[in-house]
């Protein structure tokens, strides 16, 4: 497929000849740019999107506070990127697979993951689908077609290409959308994935959240080129750059990307330009590497406020509804958090299940040995002893009840 145009002097190109524009529809005041046309969007879906964005923001704020109080070991916020994540999700069929990095809880909110389900994972209790094995925010849901998150960056990108290729062979007219940050795009797996998806024509949407930072590393130290989008040329892939704080632009771009992916079996790259308004995680303090002034400038571009202004302009939303929504979400977060905190941990046997489809004899021996040890020292291993020793369980339950009364 290599094409050559003959020239007779050494002429080097740098790529600066091509610049990639940013697609935007919605101004911060909620009005459209001249010539821009809002994508078809029912009142019902618009409110569902907005509700999901606010619910994500409220969840993030409360859970970061809970982490600061020591109730939670770790947390990561989606703050500032709600429009990118939820707009992309709203453009998909609900049965499309989503493979995310970790800052995409908004996609789960939009698809109906309940606060209880979030909390069970965050607290790693007996109801967590992941059986308390992974750190907080590593969500997964089979019923919502949301692949379980893992910490190694970019590993999901070639997996998304493979998943999508399987969808194509199955002929079910679905696609896979893969989220990742601009930092993760520096991993080798990014290159592997885009090249394989293009060569094998997989219906996959690669959705890059370019939020300016990978922990403390600004994007100018991540790549020398004009962002991530130009790389698509090297793979001969459809690409679009979009204002990630503009819900209407993200929705319109992703809908079109999905059409290309599913109808033409071609991968698409979307680079959503946004800003990570919060710290990288609960273990990070951004004041060490960026200015308050820079943060303030982006706070004024808040994607949720932008959509709120648009909704108000449509006559679909008002201040009273906003207040009621905020209050009910805050109440719900606190209630579900209390429920999840009190739930017991997963049983000890879950330590060795799911390593393989069946527990191997060697692993069973290790578990049996552990049980003998814990029975000897139940006070030193209360979470494990709970499922082995009725006395520990009774004492735990009593102290929970006491704590509840004290509130």
């Amino acid at each position, binding site marked *: 497929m290599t094409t050559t145009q003959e020239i007779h002097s050494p002429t080097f190109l740098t790529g600066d000849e091509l610049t990639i524009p940013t697609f935007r529809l919605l101004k911060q005041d909620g009005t459209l740019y001249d010539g821009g046309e809002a994508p078809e969007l029912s009142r019902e879906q618009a409110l569902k999107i907005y509700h999901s964005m606010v619910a994500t923001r409220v969840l993030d704020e409360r859970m970061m506070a809970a982490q600061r109080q020591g109730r939670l070991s770790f947390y990561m916020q989606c703050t500032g990127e709600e429009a990118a994540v939820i707009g992309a999700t709203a453009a998909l069929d609900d049965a499309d697979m989503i493979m995310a990095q970790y800052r995409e809880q908004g996609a789960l909110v939009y698809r109906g993951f309940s606060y209880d389900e979030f909390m069970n994972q965050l607290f790693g209790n007996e109801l967590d689908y*992941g059986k308390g094995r992974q750190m907080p925010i590593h969500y997964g849901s089979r019923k919502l077609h949301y692949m379980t998150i893992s910490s190694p960056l970019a590993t999901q990108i*070639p*997996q998304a290409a493979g998943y999508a290729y399987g969808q194509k*062979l199955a002929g079910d007219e679905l696609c896979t959308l893969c989220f990742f940050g601009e930092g993760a795009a520096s991993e*080798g*797996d990014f290159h*592997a994935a885009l090249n*394989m998806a293009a060569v094998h024509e997989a219906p996959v949407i690669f959705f890059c959240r370019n939020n300016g930072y990978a922990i403390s590393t600004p994007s100018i130290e991540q790549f020398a080129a004009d962002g991530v989008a130009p790389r698509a040329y090297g793979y001969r892939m459809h690409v679009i750059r979009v204002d990630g704080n503009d819900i209407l632009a993200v929705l319109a771009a992703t809908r079109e990307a999905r059409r290309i992916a599913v109808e033409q079996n071609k991968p698409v790259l979307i680079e959503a330009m946004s800003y990570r308004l919060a710290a990288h995680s609960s273990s990070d303090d951004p004041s060490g590497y960026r200015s308050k002034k820079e943060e303030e400038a982006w706070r004024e571009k808040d994607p949720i406020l932008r959509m709120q202004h648009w909704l108000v302009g449509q006559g679909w939303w008002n201040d009273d509804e906003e207040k009621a929504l905020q209050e009910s979400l805050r109440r719900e977060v606190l209630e579900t958090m209390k429920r999840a905190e009190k739930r017991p941990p997963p049983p000890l046997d879950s330590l060795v299940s799911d390593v393989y489809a069946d527990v*191997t004899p060697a692993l069973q021996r290790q578990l049996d040995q552990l049980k003998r040890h814990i029975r000897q020292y139940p006070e030193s291993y209360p979470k494990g002893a709970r499922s082995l020793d009725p006395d520990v369980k009774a004492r735990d339950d009593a102290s929970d009840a006491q704590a509840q009364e004290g509130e």
Partner: protein
Amino acid sequence: MPTMNMLQAINNALDIAMAEDDKVLCFGEDVGIFGGVFRATSHLQEKYGRSRCFNTPLVEQGIIGFANGLAAQGSVPVAEIQFADYIFPAFDQIVNETAKFRYRSGDLFNVGGLTIRTPYGGGISGGLYHSQSPEAYFAHTPGLKVVVPRNPYQAKGLLLAAIRDPDPVIFFEPKRLYRASTGEVPEEDYQLPIGEAEVTREGSDVTVLGWGAQMEVIERAVELAEKEGISCEVIDLRSILPWDQDSVVESVLKTGRLVITHEAPLTGGFAGEVAATVQERCFLYLEAPIARVTGMDTPFPLTLEKEYLADHLKVFEAIKASVAF
């Protein structure tokens, strides 16, 4: 019963698996119309089409990442890494992703359909990067199964078992034996069990344990030992992970002596794991130190390959020393 070499047996197993289930896919570098650099995938593209048997770009982490995604989706990928020496770019996908997929998701998702085939081992003048035996790196990874066949009959039966196994399997193929090892292989579908060792020769004085291409070396050493009146029990471990502790322990409880041999370097090699386990479980029955006959703790050399390898004479000497201890 037809006679096949190991490549033909592998090709035959892939053919059976692809004919049986549309979800089975074969891919890797040069796997397509060319049929693989060793021809293990010959004619599969002709027969099953380019969508099910295809070349990939030259990127090992991509091959395994793509395969993980396919397996999570419900397909049954059989991915080929051209030489085991080149599996390391995919180490992250295998160790952090493949192996942990089911566990970390609480069994919401799994990549149990995945099989990774890769030629391994020395003795073919392959130098540093066409000779390695990396099984011990993977033996340290819960969630994987690691299998090594020793002949064509085993290669077919174990590969079919690996493809249908509910867990991801790395299938190391001893490339030195690809054409050198021939034998009768049933044309029909059959499977050999994963996780079970095989006692290939019964004996009473010493247990000699190995896997893959090293079994041929063991056979030669044992013939020399038997001529000297030493009765050897020979075990082919077949599965490195999970490995069949009970069969090995049962044999050592009977013989009281154990010689373990592999091509890979000594330090951190899988013989160390076997030796430690047998020592724990057979302490009062051991009549000699457990011997390990392995490659040296060097990269795999080209010119001095014959000197480097754990050959039959080195194994023979270890058997004699164990019995004379």
